């Protein structure tokens, strides 16, 4: 079983959503493992096997009852100066990517695929997280974690949209529209995240999006003001925590989040069904 969680923008709530899936499905004894093909982040965590991975995957691993390991995030891109990005592959610095020294995308994708295969063969379910928005037309051909992974693995995907700033229907519909024809059918469902108020007001909009795209609405999640140290530098997380503190603070929150998602009617069963495809 495998599922890819995409977001309509950075900070849409992908990381937390994947952690919730890890928590919930590990509670069902399905043995999920988190995976993010590539991460653009300075907020990294030293895994037990000595490699460096994105902080988000560490949280997701704990949610799944696992210890973080390098395969969960085989590619880490760390901005290290103007126009320079340090490429970390399998937990170790690999090269500095600059405009003159671009990364060999296909070679790196092969490494991603190998790491994914190792996880899939040793776990019951792989919960993959996308990176940023999958609909960046200027980046699509170089992409690893979104359209790249969809093509490489044929993996089913769901889309998380953030309603907080408004325009969520446009974001979900537009993302679906801009995915290339060959991978669009893999996008099976969507989630509306960070909603405040009475969800019934959204119903007609949700129905319209379902009708236009054929995707299923998996739920509307309430705004949760929880101190989760988000991984990308864009999020204005007020409680940035480190190391052991982060782990205990996060673990006490994740159960609350899963519970809130259940109360809000998040359709975990459909997600499970989709992940069998």
């Amino acid at each position, binding site marked *: 079983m495998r599922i890819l969680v995409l977001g309509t923008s950075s900070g849409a709530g992908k990381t937390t959503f994947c952690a919730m899936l890890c928590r919930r499905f590990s509670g069902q004894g399905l043995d999920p493992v988190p995976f993010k093909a590539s991460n653009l982040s300075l907020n990294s965590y030293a895994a037990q096997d000595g490699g460096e991975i994105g902080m988000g995957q560490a949280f997701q691993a704990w949610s799944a009852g696992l210890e973080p390991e390098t395969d969960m995030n085989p590619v880490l891109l760390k901005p290290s100066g103007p126009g320079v990005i340090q490429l970390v592959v399998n937990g170790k610095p690999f090269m500095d990517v600059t405009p003159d020294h671009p990364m060999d995308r296909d070679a790196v994708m092969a490494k991603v695929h190998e790491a994914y295969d190792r996880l899939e063969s040793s776990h019951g379910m792989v919960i993959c997280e996308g990176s940023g*928005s999958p609909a960046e037309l200027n980046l699509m051909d170089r992409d690893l974690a979104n359209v790249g992974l969809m093509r490489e693995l044929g993996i089913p995907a769901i889309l998380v949209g953030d309603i907080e700033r408004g*325009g969520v229907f446009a*974001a979900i519909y537009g993302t679906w529209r801009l995915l290339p024809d060959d991978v669009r059918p893999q996008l099976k469902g969507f989630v509306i995240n960070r909603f405040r108020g009475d969800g019934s007001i959204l119903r007609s909009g949700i129905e319209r999006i379902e009708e236009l795209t054929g995707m299923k609405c998996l739920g509307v999640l309430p705004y949760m003001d929880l101190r989760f140290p988000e991984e990308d530098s864009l999020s204005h997380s007020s409680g940035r925590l480190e190391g052991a503190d982060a782990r205990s603070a996060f673990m006490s929150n994740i159960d609350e989040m899963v519970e809130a998602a259940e109360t809000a009617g998040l359709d975990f069963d459909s997600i499970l069904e989709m992940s069998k495809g």
Partner: protein
Amino acid sequence: MDCIKKKVNEELSKGWIGPNRCCDYHPSHFEGQDCTFCYCPFYPCEDEDLGNFITGKRGNTIWNCTDCLFIHRTPVVKFVLSEVERLGITEAGDPRFPGILIEAKRRFFREGRALMVVGATSDAGKSVTVAAICRILQRRGYLVAPFKSQNMSLNSKVTMGGSEIAMIQTLQAKAAGLKNPDCHMNPILLKPKKDTVSQVMVCGKPYADYDVESYYGEFVPGPGREIVRENVEFLKKRYDFVIMEGAGSPAEINIYDRDIANMGAAVIADADVILVVNVEWGGSFAYALGTVELIPEEDRRRIKGIIFNNVRGDTSRFREGIPAFEEVCGIPVIGVVPHADVILPSEDSEALRGLRSRGEGKCLVGVIKFPRIANFTDLDPLFLEDVSVVFVEKASDLEGVDAVVLPGTKNTVNDMRWMEETGIADAVRKLRGRVPIAGICGGYQMMGAKLDDSLGLEGGVPGTVLDGLGFFGNTTVFGKYEKRIVNSTGEMLVGGGGTVTGYELHMGMSEVTEEPLFRIENRFDKGPQEEGSVREGEMLFGTYLHGVFDRKPFRRYFLSFVKHGGEAVELCDSKDYDDVVEENIGKLADVFEENMDIPALLGILGVSE
């Protein structure tokens, strides 16, 4: 009338003078106005396109043309003068003037065009785009007015006429070179009061309180649409262009049919539309395409261009995606605008969300972040000094602050209760006499001894009487559902004097028992009034005047009491905030001019360079 005739006679003998930049009042209407006819030779023209009858103070009927700009357009002036000469007119009141006006109107009076800027999300950059377009057109000699049919904001300002409108429309009016923003530019202002209830202001005056359901169920389909229509029509008659701003996303398909803030307003105003998308969070192509395609086709046709805004770093990488986007979307991208590093007041509380501190200065000012904090643009001028602000949400946030500011609030009573419950009130009381403390509006009311809301008008619970912070002996009574809305200018009565300007916007009136801080004048009160409260020895300052820190004298005076680690705050050569804003509007417009397809923009507006 005789007085006007005398003035017009003088004007006729002087001939064309163009903009009179030596005049103290210049520009009384707009930057670049023609001042030849400071007094109109057609008065009272009684032409409903140009003015209206109002009732004067003594109940008499007066022809009012304060909003008419027609006689301040140079082509009109030159035509009138040439006709005066051709016909040999020498006297004001000549019966041939009405005929000249008819001909001048036939030649020069055109209804303006409306252009609407909508955003894919909140915070997309709509308001700065409107400001930039206003300035870009103003630089080309056009008369431009900003317009936002419905604004939800707790940051508002007061017009010359004593109406309350959203702060951001006054900023856009400044960008358009207008001296006096008016209530037509933001006819509906929603001020969130409680969780789902807002005070609705119509044309700058309190109208009624609505919750979400009754607003969309009763107000919008009832008076709402007509209010939007009347006001945008008013502006179209007076300006070459009306640049409208949407609210939130126009593609909220679940409430599309109840909208008067986005495409609904564009239809009413018959406006073409530009969509602005903030690139910063990613997914901008999807947001843009989704917004366009979810709008029903008959309205979608109005969308003539897309601007991608707030691109960080080099825009060339982003531009690589544009040809593919234009092919799918079918609407041209008319701008890819990089992040503009400008100092402008922040529009709404979105900007404060999650913000714990701001600024890099040495002196630490603790600002109480009330749940209903209002007019927090009052704080913006502080950042011109060596100041940083920490937003106080719990008592411990006050540790180490060098000064405290209690800002405005939409609900003094509920926020006072919140201060007590969080322990912030006691923490502030402990700082009395140790650091300077200033209260503005609601914050000033809280500094008094009592808040009397016996009628429940402010907090909603009749019989409420709360203790304030007890810094002043003042009592504030919320006695009527009535709001004081007034612009004032005055003198400081402390610190050796100096000019202060500001505006009052409040429910509730205070009985003041303290030494006053200012002596102010305005067009509504008879003669100068004492305003504010001060106990200099205890470093306590309170005023109803929003914008009190905008001018240097009071800002400097307040900061002169601040000691950071025993040292006084270093005062750099800062300017009046107004000048800083003006400079930054120019910078903003430059960034848009450089990164927008200006011929395409002008093409949408039906003009060329």
